[in-house]
């Protein structure tokens, strides 16, 4: 897994609430058998017009969004289906972090396993960031995982929660399966006891 330490980037504003994983990546793109190449289908039904051309009104298609690594999204982002294709598509497009006031449970867990950092902030911080970013798309936001802080604008600084284990894995680029495999003896013991 890619390490995550500190990121400074401008952001793509997506103020919609309850953006579900069917919007992030519609089901018809789930017939793939690998994880790659899903970035082109990210937000597909919002992003492209009927004839397949870019929808100029969708934020991801704006020139100011190109190269952004942070998505600033409305509350309860990633609800619905458990498809890990959602973080694969977000990472495939180039995002490394999502800032929101809340994330759906499975989406958050899937993201953390793909080097995509969910950053949960308060309503007031979210509003301040959204306003600033919408006003000036080049507004830079810095996310520091070690100190668990978000800084932006003049003097906006806030902390965000993350469990110690996920933080450790992201900082070091540790993959969780390797960690799980190290419990082989205890797992065997548990299996013996229960049969």
């Amino acid at each position: 897994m890619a390490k995550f330490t500190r990121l400074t980037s401008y952001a793509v504003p997506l103020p919609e609430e309850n953006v579900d994983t069917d919007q992030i990546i519609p089901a018809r793109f789930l017939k793939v058998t690998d994880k790659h190449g899903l970035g082109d289908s990210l937000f597909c039904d919002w992003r492209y017009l009927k004839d397949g051309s870019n929808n100029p009104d969708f934020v991801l298609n704006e020139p100011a969004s190109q190269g952004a690594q942070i998505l600033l999204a409305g509350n309860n982002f990633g609800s619905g289906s458990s498809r890990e294709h959602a973080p694969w598509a977000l990472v495939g497009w180039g995002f490394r972090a999502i800032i929101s006031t809340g994330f759906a449970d499975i989406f958050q867990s899937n993201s953390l396993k793909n080097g995509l950092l969910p950053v949960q902030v308060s309503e007031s911080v979210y509003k301040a960031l959204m306003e600033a970013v919408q006003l000036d798309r080049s507004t830079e936001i810095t996310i520091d995982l070690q100190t668990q802080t978000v800084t932006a604008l003049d003097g906006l600084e806030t902390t965000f929660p993350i469990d110690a284990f996920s933080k450790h894995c992201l900082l070091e680029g540790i993959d969780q399966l390797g960690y799980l495999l190290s419990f082989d003896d205890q797992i065997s013991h548990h299996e013996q006891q229960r049969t």
Partner: protein
Amino acid sequence: MTIIMKPRTLFQKVWDEHVVVEEPDRPAVLYIDLHLIHEVTSPQAFTGLRERGIGVRRPDKTIATMDHSTPTLPKALWVIDDQAKAQLGQLERNCKDFGIELYALGDSRNGIVHVIGPERGFTQPGKTIVCGDSHTSTHGAFGALAFGIGTSEVEHVLATQCLLQRKAKTLEVRVEGQLMPGVTAKDIILALCSKIGTGGGTGYVIEFTGSAIRALDMEGRMTVCNMSIEAGARAGMIGPDETTFAYLRGRDRVPQAADWDAAVERWTQLCTDEGAVFDKTVVIDANKLEPMITYGTNPGMGMQISDPMPTTARFEDASQRAAFEKAMGYMDLQPGQRLLGKKIDVVFIGSCTNSRISDLRMAAGVFSGRKVAQGVRTLVVPGSHDIKKQAEAEGLDQIFQEAGAEWREPGCSMCIAMNGDNLEPGQYAVSTSNRNFEGRQGKGGRTFLASPLTAAASAVKGEVTDPRSLLLS
């Protein structure tokens, strides 16, 4: 000396039984008793195993089915696109290489993953059950701890039979009273989604309690637990009781003979102890429930079927107002109006929420002696081959076909629209499935979620219809 045990919830008991390692500041290592896999969310997990050169730890605790992208037309008419074909082929190869039992397309025991688990008796009280699919919560109806996982976690479970898990908080949803005729399990869960919203249960495992839950049969309980995820909760659970045991007795994979009695004895102990504390409680009055329907683009945007839709003014919060307006725009509906009488194009009766025999019986009861309205396409898709056979033995297929509905082969079908069963842009559907997200049932399609009774009544009238108007006539 007597040891006084602190009263525990059902969730706590199942959790305690399955913790392999629990250290401070680390997620627990939780043992998984049953791992269900399907074609869509497993290929990358097997690729991961091969890259690491490791095998599947417990193929005997792993069951595979094909359901999401499978065709629902009779075998002679099977159309599968190349990508879906490759994905199904890959599942078949993976199961063969790693020794996993597969209920493949064409197998007489094939069906939707959350339908066949209970049907074959794999699903049992007290088990931990996972699947790369959010509606795994369905299995909680049996008093199992069952939840959806991502593909990375599918790989974890294949490799270690364990998951790294943080303990959830507990939410009791107490439903007391008696449902009125025409009101079903689906209406209970849609009412909960409307009440607490799609994020209301985030971070919690729900336990459904109360007399109205106890009165439900297993199929109704599965409907309720199925949509726990739509209220944001990863899992929903119901304490096992006589209804649970009666359903399971004699099924393929449950303990037999003397083992059965021992199992029932064990399962009886699982219920939440008197005095155990939940982190939060929500109460629903079953006596006051009416048939529910959604009007918007997430399952929390629901209402009693006779109510008008909200007006924009009702949303004080700007972002909620914006979400409501966007949903109304997508659905092309007017705030403040009623949905009753709204013309519809399609009715879908199926999905892991409402495709079991009692759901089909409910729908058939409405269709019996009636016809689907002109111009309405109605699809009835049983959840498994077992259910299909049972329905045909009871003559339900005849009732559906005589009414003018299509009687299909089992599968997820128009719930997720991956297999060619889909809405056309702009069409309105009343659907017994679980998600009304934009495009969920086909790009540009518009979904009203409701019970099988409401769906069937709406098919007959060609418009959104309160089923009680037909039940009473």
